[in-house]
């Protein structure tokens, strides 16, 4: 039954997102301690997070960890959308699209 598959996939997405996010935060803290880097009081703007990670910057890793956490629930909406599309469940496809557009609006506010 596809709904069982959906539940399994959501568990996978949640676990993966949580582990990656917490892992990044932990690495960030360790890097800050080992390399003596200061973590600021404000997260970097989204566009500057990846370049900071590339520099092996502690705050960049912590910020990326936070962002991975925030997109994890969005990933399960995408997984659900795919399942409902396969089931040709028009109502729940619309529900997922509506949800994604609300989140896109919220992220849009973030980027402007």
């Amino acid at each position, binding site marked *: 039954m596809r709904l069982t598959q959906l*539940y399994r996939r959501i568990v996978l997405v949640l676990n993966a997102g949580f582990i990656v996010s917490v892992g990044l*935060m932990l690495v960030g803290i360790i890097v800050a301690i080992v390399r003596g880097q*200061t*973590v600021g009081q404000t*997260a970097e703007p*989204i566009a500057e997070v990846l370049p900071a990670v590339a520099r092996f910057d502690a705050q960049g890793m912590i910020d990326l960890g936070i962002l991975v956490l925030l997109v*994890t629930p969005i990933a399960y909406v995408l997984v659900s959308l795919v399942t409902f599309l396969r089931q040709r469940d028009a*109502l729940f496809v619309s529900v997922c699209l509506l949800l994604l557009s609300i989140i896109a*609006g919220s992220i849009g506010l973030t980027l402007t």
Partner: protein
Amino acid sequence: MQVEERSDELGELIAVGIVAVVAGTLGTMLGLGGGVFLVPILSLVFGVQLETAVAASAIAVVANSASGSANYLRARFTNVRLAMLMLVATTAGAVIGGVVAIGLPEAALKGLFAGLLLFVAVVMYRRSFLSIASSVAIELPDDPLRLGGRFQDPSVNAIVTYVPRNVRLGMPIASLGGVASGMFGIGGGPITVPLMTVLMQMPVKAAASTSSFMVGLTASASAFIYYANGFVNPRVTVAAVFGIVLGARLGVRVATRVRPQLLVSIFIVMLATLSILMATDAIGLI
């Protein structure tokens, strides 16, 4: 000088982490989530700006939902279809709540938070004397949207089947839970769980699990707004995330070993006290 600053940083991380563990434990034992305690303590004790405390709590709520929902999903307590539908209301509410919170002066936000804490204390007081209407109707209503759920309840060793009622009426109320989540970083569980058990007549396990699943996306929607406006403090947030997640796990274990009635009474007093302190603080800012 730099060493001193770094030890301050580490000290702040550890102190906030410990408070978050305690807040997470208490919040989970009460079924409220840790934010209800964490946000006022960060603001009152650590002097963290309220919006920053709310953002840290909202992000910790996302982490807690991601780490805590898996078991409920596996047991099929969580009703994903219903969650998706209700999430439309709660996430829209959360975005509005986040935008409003950022636009409000801090004193007003603190005053509103004081009101919220008092509201939660009153709900807890009433709930401790009223049994939640969680009985499942023998005759199930029609379910054209296939929102019904079915799970094996190990506590009664039976398969529980239900169909949520009054969904249309529940959606606008759920959006209020979203607004509260967006404004105060508390996840919205204190509103959505009673909504699902009382108005929608869902079994408590299904309601609590579905709400725990929903709060992640709801909190995430508003957290982006706080992030964009510079209210995410990585130090406070990391400590809150680790503390709340650890505290929630402890809370589940401790809750089964203590007398609930006594605890609820103590917590009601704590919530009321935090509400008074928050209101006093808000007046001081005017």
